[in-house]
């Protein structure tokens, strides 16, 4: 899926386009997990996977590391292996580093989620919450969880940067540390109350959990379930997935061709009008077709 050689890329694209078209709806549960470095995202995933496996659900995980180095090298290192079950075919874990290549990480992430969603009951996408990667992950997930750590100023920073508008569920980790976690949860609750687009009928919950001791994990899974039911009951999931696909296509075009790409297609507004209603079932093929149009325009100009 992340092989950059042209022949392999073509094969992969064909497969992805088929998958998008044929995948059943709503299919696997897609959950995004984001938060600052050190918030305990990996440990939380480990705890979640453990509980889900006990319930008999199979789980695929894509972990995205947006950091990029001059050497091109990357250490997917502090990611300590999910300890959930020794060798368990019911769990799949793939880590990906940002690379300087066509399409960037967003393509590879979306591709991985699509593939894993065909095989596993539930798919998690994890990333460090910094800018674009978080938006990408939000577009790929039905439910986005933000993992906060107690006493950290970063939650405030995220709030200022507007990044806390995206998550649907907040989990304050390290609740075993006691008071600091309660305080952070309180700050988050009041912060969320002040602004942010409240989705009708969904009050974004703030939970205190401990990934290490496992406390609050069941409650978190309950909230994830509740959010999914909320989306399905209001028939809001298709719109959410479509919005994610739209962002993917627009981002993809501007990443590949810069502002010229969108202009060549008549600007973002006109383009949005043109995009099909079932875009989330055709994002890769639409992106490919639009790309061809832009290239055609490029040749003419």
């Amino acid at each position, binding site marked *: 899926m992340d092989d*950059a050689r042209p022949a392999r890329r073509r094969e992969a694209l064909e497969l992805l386009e088929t998958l998008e078209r044929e995948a059943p709806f709503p299919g696997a549960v897609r959950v995004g997990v984001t938060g600052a470095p050190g918030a305990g995202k990996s440990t939380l995933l480990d705890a979640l996977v453990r509980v889900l496996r006990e319930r008999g659900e199979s789980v695929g995980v894509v972990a995205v590391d947006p950091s990029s180095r001059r050497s091109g*090298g990357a*250490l*997917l*290192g502090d990611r*300590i*292996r999910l*300890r959930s079950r020794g060798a368990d075919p019911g769990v799949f*874990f793939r880590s990906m580093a940002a690379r300087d290549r066509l399409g960037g990480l967003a393509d590879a992430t979306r591709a991985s989620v699509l593939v894993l969603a065909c095989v596993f009951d539930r798919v998690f996408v994890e990333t460090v919450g910094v800018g674009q990667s978080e938006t990408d992950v939000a577009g790929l997930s039905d439910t986005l969880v933000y993992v906060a750590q107690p006493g950290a100023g970063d939650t405030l920073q995220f709030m200022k940067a507007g990044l806390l508008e995206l998550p649907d569920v907040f989990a304050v980790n390290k609740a075993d540390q006691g008071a600091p976690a309660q305080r952070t949860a309180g700050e988050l609750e009041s912060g969320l109350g002040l602004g942010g687009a409240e989705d009708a009928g969904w009050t974004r919950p703030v939970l205190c959990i401990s990934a290490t001791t496992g406390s609050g994990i069941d409650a978190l899974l309950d909230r994830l379930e509740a959010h999914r039911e909320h989306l399905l009951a209001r028939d809001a999931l298709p719109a959410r997935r479509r919005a994610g696909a739209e962002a993917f296509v627009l981002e993809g075009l501007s990443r590949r061709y810069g502002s010229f790409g969108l202009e060549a297609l008549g600007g973002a507004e006109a383009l949005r009008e043109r995009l099909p209603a079932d875009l989330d079932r055709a994002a890769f093929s639409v992106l490919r077709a639009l790309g061809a149009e832009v290239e055609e325009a490029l040749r003419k100009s």
Partner: protein
Amino acid sequence: MSRPERARPWVFRTYSGHSSARASNELYRSNLAKGQTGLSVAFDLPTQTGYDADHPLARGEVGKVGVPVGSIEDMQALFEEIPLDRMNTSMTINATAAWLLALYVAAGERQGVAPAQLQGTTQNDIIKEYLSRGTYVFPPEPSLRLISDMVAFTVDAIPKWNPVNVCSYHLQEAGATPAQEIAYSMATAVAVLDAVRARDDVPDEAIPRVFGRISFFLNAGIRFLEEVCKCRAMAEIWDELARERYGVQDEKLRRFRYGVQVNSLGLTEAQPENNVIRIVLEALGVTLSKKARCRALQLPAWNEALGLPRPWDQQWSLRIQQILAYETDLLEYGDIFDGSTVIESRTAELLEEAQAELHKVLELGGAVAAVENAYMKRKLVESHTARVKAIESGELQVIGVNCYSESEPSPLLEGSQSVLKVDDAAERAQIERLEAFRKRRNAADAEAALRGLSDAVKSGANVMPASIRCAETGVTTGEWADALRDVFGEYRAPTGVADRASAELGESAGRVRERVRAVSEHLGRPLKILVGKPGLDGHSNGAEQIAVKARDVGMEVVYEGIRLTPQEIAQSARDEGVHVIGLSILSGSHGVLVIDTLEQLRAQGLGDVPVVVGGIIPDEDADLLRRAGVRRVYTPKDYDLVRIMGEVVDVVAESAAAA
């Protein structure tokens, strides 16, 4: 001519144990007959990490780096015909220290020896396990509680026991400078003492006695004059902590008491006979200064970098101690450095530097916090990286390794018998003994004792009485540890590698990076390597250095920490789609674990993914591994990481060309 009065020598020990309790008992008795005056028990990794011999993670590790002790019967066999009321026993045991002490108490009782008569030491320093040695099991907070339970219990019940031997030893192996060694070990001691002081069941007036029972375990490196200064500085800083932080008045209780194992990691595989000279010089560093002389000394064997020493190798090291203590005039004088301005000024420098660093760690919230936020780990890795670089560049000279490497063939290495081989049947035999024992014991008693343990752990009661009850009723090591795992959970320490700064790349590394780029282009995506540590061996420094170097030359590196089964490694390799796998095993279990990993890879359809292995691997084993399909084998004499990286790229390129 009358001989001048001589000081009493330190306790002579040899760190030993292997295969089975019975085989180790024989070794101990023969060592004692040769004049050893104390015992130092090496436990195998399953015992150290709380697994029974038949647990999947124990495979290949039973009886390898030490003796397996799975129950009271093993403990009894280990000390058969060794009267525990007259023995001074040091146990290198940490996460499961409370359990091994409980077994020792129970074994003593079966010999008719009361707990109050027992003398010895449990290492029991969990901080350095997180930082370096890797045999932790539980998270830091509950681990610290177990330690403080032991301190609170022994101070009255086993008053001659040293419940905690704070280790600067492993910090040095992990790369610590002398000042870091002093600062971080003192920070650990402070964490333990503060935890004990905070307990309701330890009255304030007991604190000086508690303080007096805390001992240290030091490393002695080849810069032996600086080591003299380090020991003197530690004695001073300890005395200051006693007076100022803990209000200890009694001079006797303020004494800095420490045991030593001289540096084993610095022993070389190349020209190993030179190690004898290194060992002697390092022993001088901790014995020359009377004021800061060790209480107990254990010397490694000359061939430790090659494999497990034989009884003769250990005897040679014991003789070094005896010659030093009995033949030389060392013990006839007072402190020969008193009045030396050189020693005093270096000591003062170290003291100042160490105090500043200790202050910093305490400011950050103490040793436990500095583990959790990886501050200490990061500092150690920085120092270690600098050291490795200095050896690579030749700035730090290691005779026979990066200079003067031309050598006559060594007659000591002739034949395949230059190290001890643990019989692979030892594991099977231990499992059979364990199974028979489980059938023989009174299951209801053992279950009741385990419930009692679980209750004590949950309620916050001291775990020692309940653990002793478990020992007496025939609970096994794995059962004891599982009961605690159920309540405390298991800890995975931060590896400290992810945010490690990359080193400046030299010219040769730059060339390797170019090759990585070229091969990646050919592969269609960046060269991805999995660095794996199968088995229970927790010495992660080597694997971490490899991981960081691989990243620096442009590879994508998946490093998932320690304690993985071959199946887990194979599954990761498949999930992550790696091009090459590097395995690191220092426990000597490479035979079983590497072969198992290769089999698992084949089972996953990954038989064509090349595997390279690093570890303490004798030549004949290396041949075996290569025949089994391992592409390259690296041993401690391969210190040039850039060259290793270059070869890894070669291996990937060869495989890609063959595919």
